[in-house]
């Protein structure tokens, strides 16, 4: 299974809605960025992080999950 399929299947399993997908390069590493909505999800962000990190290990990629407030605070005045 591909990286996108692997990650999105975890999100789908928990009813996490994908709002936006983009890509960028972070310190020479190709990175996929997903903005997701957990308001209807059956897990909290901590549990989702654990499952996505697990899936990431299986796929051989690093997965980081951050609350959007971190970006709002750091990138918007």
């Amino acid at each position: 299974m591909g990286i996108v399929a692997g990650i999105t299947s975890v999100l789908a399993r928990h009813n996490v809605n994908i709002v936006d997908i983009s890509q960028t390069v972070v310190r020479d590493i190709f990175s996929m960025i997903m903005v997701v909505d957990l308001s209807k999800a059956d897990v909290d962000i901590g549990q989702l992080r654990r499952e996505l990190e697990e899936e990431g290990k299986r796929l051989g990629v690093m997965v980081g999950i951050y609350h959007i407030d971190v970006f709002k605070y750091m990138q918007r005045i």
Partner: protein
Amino acid sequence: MRFDPREIGEVLEMLLFRELDIRAVTLSVNTLPAARPRVGELLQALEELLEPYLARLKPAVERVASRLGVRVVTVRLAVSPVSMLLEPIGDWRAAVEVAQHLDKLAEKYGVDMVGGFSAFIHMGASRGDKALMEALPEALNSTARVAGFLNVASTATGVNLDGVRKTAELVLAMKPHAAARFAATANLPEDVPFMPGAYHGLGLPDAVVNIAVSGPGVIEAVVRNMPDADVRTLHDAIKRAAFKITRLGELVGKEVAKELGLPFGTVDLSVAPSPKVGDSVAAVLEAIGLPRVGAPGSVFALALFTDAVKKGGAMAASTIGGLSGAFIPVSEDAVMAKAAAKGALTLDTLKAMAAVCNTGIDMVGIPGDASPEAVAALIADVMALAVHLDKPLGVRLVPIPGAKPGDVYDLGGLYGSVAVMNLPSSKIPLVSRGGTAPPGVERLKKG
């Protein structure tokens, strides 16, 4: 709200690769209601007062860290100056018991450090202060998480040379691990989240959450990417990075305070280094353009850095508190430690750098048999700078038994490896004159 992928990428790089994290969430609690005339009752009252806070503190920090995805390195408690709790008892043995009890409580609730085993003696020592001072070596030698300071100077009252001399003797009676948790200070503000300067000061509510940020690695990366920029352009770039770092502190502070149902106090915008590679303030200074920290140009580079961090941080947080400047603790900053071990840093260089930061002489090793006079004179120098420049500064020296200048002693963890510096042991009669040096004109300007 939409974000450009590069904006998200920038934050990810800081969090994942530049060691951006929250150095400490420090819960500051008024412990004066626990004062009792007998030590047994005092310990019980202290425990009853603190337990409801402590039981919730670490779980609350963990919930916020998990929700945001941000690392919080340490969870700390600051209490009212223990000297004040000791006023009714006035016995140093009670002070030792208080320290040991705080240590046990911290361990039980997963709190990394407790600050406030402290006294303010900048104009003289009271009954409680004296009890605390007598207890200091044993209290810190017999605990692992308790931290304290003696504030021996202030802009308002000058430098208490008798207090400085006594402090030097106390430091020399401490084991390395204990001395790393103690500082002689001047002008210490009431809301410091960093150890060993943290305590619950006057003018605060019963409990308040203060935040200490980290992230010099973020600024180092910014500076290294601008090898041809002039200093004003560089200053602007550092300011922008510092803004983002401090914003993260503000966010975590607000969230933890909300989680605990307590007021959010302040963010200390000093970007604290650690012994980890890529987490060094001295590396920023070298990136600005020094062959090695300590070389000519170090004061200029540090002043540029400190000023930019202050100006960037000032807009990022609703309340800036604590020390809010720049930290260059020698052992706790990998690049400072390396420079010290190579002999590129001297005590005189550190004194000069103290003029443009808020550190002083911090985490420097001295031979265990150093003369109390020389230690006192060194502390007095830094205290004079603090009083006449009107700012907080400290001296944290680690006596290493049997060591000579150039030796390195590993304290482990965030303390890092202490390099022993040369402290001339010639006679310094000044110190035995004693008394309190009057405040300077900075005091008169305020009147």
